[in-house]
């Protein structure tokens, strides 16, 4: 899980930072294509993560079990989050 989470964290951060850049450089085509390639990778990484470790969002993610795993999985501020999923 750590590797997948790390990958998703890195991709999402790249998207956040590029989006801020694009807010003030809206016509930079290179940055837009880089942004789009990161979003594509982040989307597939997010799907893979949720399939293996449960929902990332309480009202957007598909519930793959018959019980509500959202409340069961560790929260990201606890150290368990990185070791016990």
């Amino acid at each position, binding site marked *: 899980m750590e590797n997948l*989470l790390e990958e998703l*964290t890195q991709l999402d951060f790249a998207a956040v930072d590029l989006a*801020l850049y694009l807010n*003030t450089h809206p016509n930079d085509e290179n940055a837009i294509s880089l942004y789009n390639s990161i979003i594509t990778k982040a989307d597939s990484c997010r799907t893979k993560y949720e399939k293996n470790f449960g929902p990332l969002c*309480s009202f957007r993610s598909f519930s793959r079990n018959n019980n509500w795993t959202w409340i069961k999985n560790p929260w*990201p*501020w606890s*150290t368990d989050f*990185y070791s016990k999923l």
Partner: protein
Amino acid sequence: MWIYEKKLEYPVKIKHTNPTLAKLILTQYGGPDGELGASLRYLSQRFSMLTPEAKATLNDIGTEELAHLEIIGAIVHQLTRDLTEEQLKASGLDAYYVDHGVGIYPANAAGTPFTAAYIQSTGNPAVDLYEDMAAEEKARKTYEYIMKFIDDPDVMDPIRFLRTREIVHFQRFGECLMYVQDEMGKKKVFPIENNNPCKKNCNCEEN
């Protein structure tokens, strides 16, 4: 509308507790230059922001600051796990403890509660952006002061990340200010306020 994702913007994995350090870092949760004030400032100011670039920037940086607030909360929380009475007394966290236990309360390093008086929202886009640039610099300064007290790489790592974000945000606000000043310089009728005390609306520079 906001969407919460069950992960941190940057990971926090602290192995060793350190209540003395926790007390110092708490100021970036609820102190004068902290992440709560930052988020509240930008998310409030965005309603009267001018130009598409600046509106988006305040909205999105205000949102990122909430993720930073969560990182600071996680750092303080992990630094104050399983404390003994002796550790509490020796660390200086005892005064905080009698009010808040090891709960996360928005206060500065000296325990003063968060106040909205730390921020402004003036309705003037240029004035607000000057404040925002200063706010990012003040937050960077606070992280640098805090770094002098950190000898644990587990703590230094996320703090270093947060410090660099202040630099990026400062840059983005500076770019917004250029767009806003350009727009304000066009001298069209300005719905938010008219700074010119001459009431004749004649563009004389009588101020």
